C-alpha cells in the first residue's frame, strides 16, 4: 500500500495504482490516473467507468463481455477507449479493485 496525491487529494493506492477505498474516487482522480497513462478521458470513457462502478457495487464479476453487452460500447470500442488494458485500465480509473476474472 502506498499513498498518492491525485487531483489535490491524498489517497491510498495499491502497488499497481488501484484505489484502496472506492469511496475516494472522483472524476478528477480518474482523469489524473488516465493522464499518467497518456489517455484523455471523454464522456464515453466516463460512461464506461460509471457502468463499472455500478456493477461492482452490485457485486457483479466484471468481464469485457459484460461491458461489451452494456450498450455503451462494443468490445472493439472498449479496446480503443482503453488501449492495452480494456478491463484493467478501466477498473483502475473507475476506482474499483483490479479485476479478478480471466475473461
Amino acid at each position: 500500500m502506498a499513498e498518492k496525491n491525485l487531483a489535490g487529494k491524498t489517497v491510498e493506492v495499491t502497488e499497481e495504482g488501484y484505489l484502496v477505498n472506492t469511496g475516494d474516487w472522483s472524476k478528477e482522480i480518474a482523469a489524473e490516473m488516465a493522464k499518467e497513462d497518456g489517455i484523455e478521458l471523454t464522456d464515453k470513457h466516463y460512461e464506461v467507468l460509471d457502468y463499472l462502478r455500478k456493477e461492482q457495487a452490485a457485486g457483479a464479476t466484471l468481464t469485457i463481455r459484460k461491458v461489451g453487452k452494456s450498450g455503451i460500447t462494443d468490445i472493439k470500442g472498449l479496446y480503443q477507449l482503453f488501449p492495452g488494458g480494456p478491463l484493467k485500465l478501466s477498473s483502475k480509473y473507475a476506482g474499483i479493485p483490479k479485476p479478478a476474472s480471466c475473461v
Partner: protein
Amino acid sequence: MTEVKETPLKKVLIIVAKANIEDVYAGLIMANGAVMEGIEAKLFFTFFGLDAITKKYMNKLHTSTVGNPGMRMPGGLPFPTLLGAIPGVEAGVSAMMKKQMDELDVPPVDEFLDMITAGGGEIYACKMAADMFKLTKDDLSDHVEAIITVGDLYAMSGGEGTQIIFT
C-alpha cells in the same frame, strides 16, 4: 553479481491441436487474456483443433466422457468410463460444461473469436491439416485470417519477448 534483466512478454503464439472443449477453451482463454493485457496474440489451429474454427462444428464441441480421468459425477464420485460410452451422455456432459462456463461469462466459440479479434488477436489455420481434412477458407470462420504453413507460423514468431505455447 549478474544483473537480472526482466523481459516482459510481448507476443504469444498459441497452438491448438485438439477439439475437446477444454483444449480449445484453454487456447481461447489464454489468447483473450493476452490481448486484454496488451500482449499480441496469434492462435494457430491444427489437426482436430480445426473443428474450433470450422463453421459447421465450432459451436458443437464436446468434451470426452471416455478415458477422461478428470470426469466425475456430481458430488465427486468417479465417472465410470462405460457410462461415458452410452449414447447421449457425452452430449449431456458437454452441454452442462458449456452452461457452467456461460455462467462465468465465458462465451461460445464464435463469440470468443469475436472478442479476441476485437482486441487485435489473429486466428490462423494450419495448411497441412486443412488439406488433410479437405477444408478451404470458406469452411472456416470469417475470423480466420489465413491458412498458413508451419514456416509462416515461425516467421511470425520473431521478436524479443515472444513465446510459443502448445496446448
